[in-house]
């Protein structure tokens, strides 16, 4: 029902832009950062664990918009930066969108060896009420990462077992029907993510 509307809006926007010859001026509904998937893409069945070992599967995401980032809690730079930025983007939409339309922010740990569900929950909550974490066994994480186009790899740092994780910096937007709706690739900015969320969520509600 909503898809034709989005296509019409975008087609009209494009046509209007062409008609006015405003090549350098973005039309009002032009996304700044997101790659908008139309149609939205189904997500393969997954099963992860949140705090208290609660199951997080496809059905658990139904009814909410969710921004998903893959990272790990021993990451001092890009992970806290990204979570803070997503939290800021969400906060900046609180006046424009009804609370029920605001996205949750999900950190999926690619480091289950160190990130227990409870440690992950404590870490995620630090970045805001809407931020939560999930993890799983290696196979479960590998499966959802592959499905969403996320890559990660463990990188040893010394002979004593220290390691870091290389991982995609991409942020994914999952819609309330649990389909992949948009992809944000780094470098990320809170302002452009908020702007695009306003358009994508606004068009869908």
């Amino acid at each position, binding site marked *: 029902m909503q898809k034709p509307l989005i296509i019409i809006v975008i087609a009209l926007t494009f046509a209007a832009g062409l008609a006015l010859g405003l090549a350098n001026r973005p039309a009002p509904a032009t996304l700044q950062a997101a790659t908008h998937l139309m149609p939205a893409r189904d997500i393969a069945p997954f099963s992860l664990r949140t705090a208290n070992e609660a199951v997080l599967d496809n059905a658990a995401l139904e009814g909410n918009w969710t921004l998903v980032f893959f990272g790990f809690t021993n990451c*001092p730079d*890009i992970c806290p930066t990204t979570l803070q930025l997503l939290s800021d983007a969400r906060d900046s939409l609180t006046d424009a969108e009804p609370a029920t339309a605001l996205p949750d922010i999900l950190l999926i740990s690619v480091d289950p060896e160190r990130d227990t569900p409870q440690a992950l929950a404590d870490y995620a909550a630090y970045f805001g009420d809407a931020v939560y974490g999930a993890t799983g066994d290696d196979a479960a994480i590998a499966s959802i990462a592959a499905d969403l186009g996320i890559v990660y790899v463990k990188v040893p740092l010394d002979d004593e077992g220290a390691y870091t994780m290389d991982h995609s910096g991409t942020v994914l937007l999952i819609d309330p029907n649990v389909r992949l709706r948009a992809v944000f690739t780094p470098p990320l900015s809170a302002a452009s993510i908020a702007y695009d969320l306003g358009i994508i969520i606004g068009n869908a509600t």
Partner: protein
Amino acid sequence: MNRVLFVCIAALGMLGLGCQPAAQPPVEVSNAWLRAPAPGKQVTAAYMSIQNNSDAALVIDRVSSTQFARVEIHATQMQDGTMRMREQAALTIAPGERISLAPGGLHLMLFDPTDAVDAGSTVDITLATGSQPVAQLTVPVSRDNPYAD
């Protein structure tokens, strides 16, 4: 508000002059901040701009803090969309140049705080060339970049 938070140069210190902005110190550090570690985490990052006003290249290859067991120079690099964080041997700043340590790029990685490090407090960080300190900083601890517009 003066954004040059703290600049103290060992050479000037020996003359007993302390910090003298008019003298254009050879190393100028501005907008330094440390990200408050998330609960239970033993690692965090610090960011700043470092200006080399001298006529020789500045090599910072040792960084320390009395409040952390270890400090390393790191860079987050994006390659094909993947974020890779790697230790760097040194920061090298050409004469007259400035480098920025900023989220998603160069940063200091600090390990194992000896005490709680909370937002609103400060930590000391010393930048050095070998055993020779080039800047001793008092860095504010903040949840997010306190200099962002």
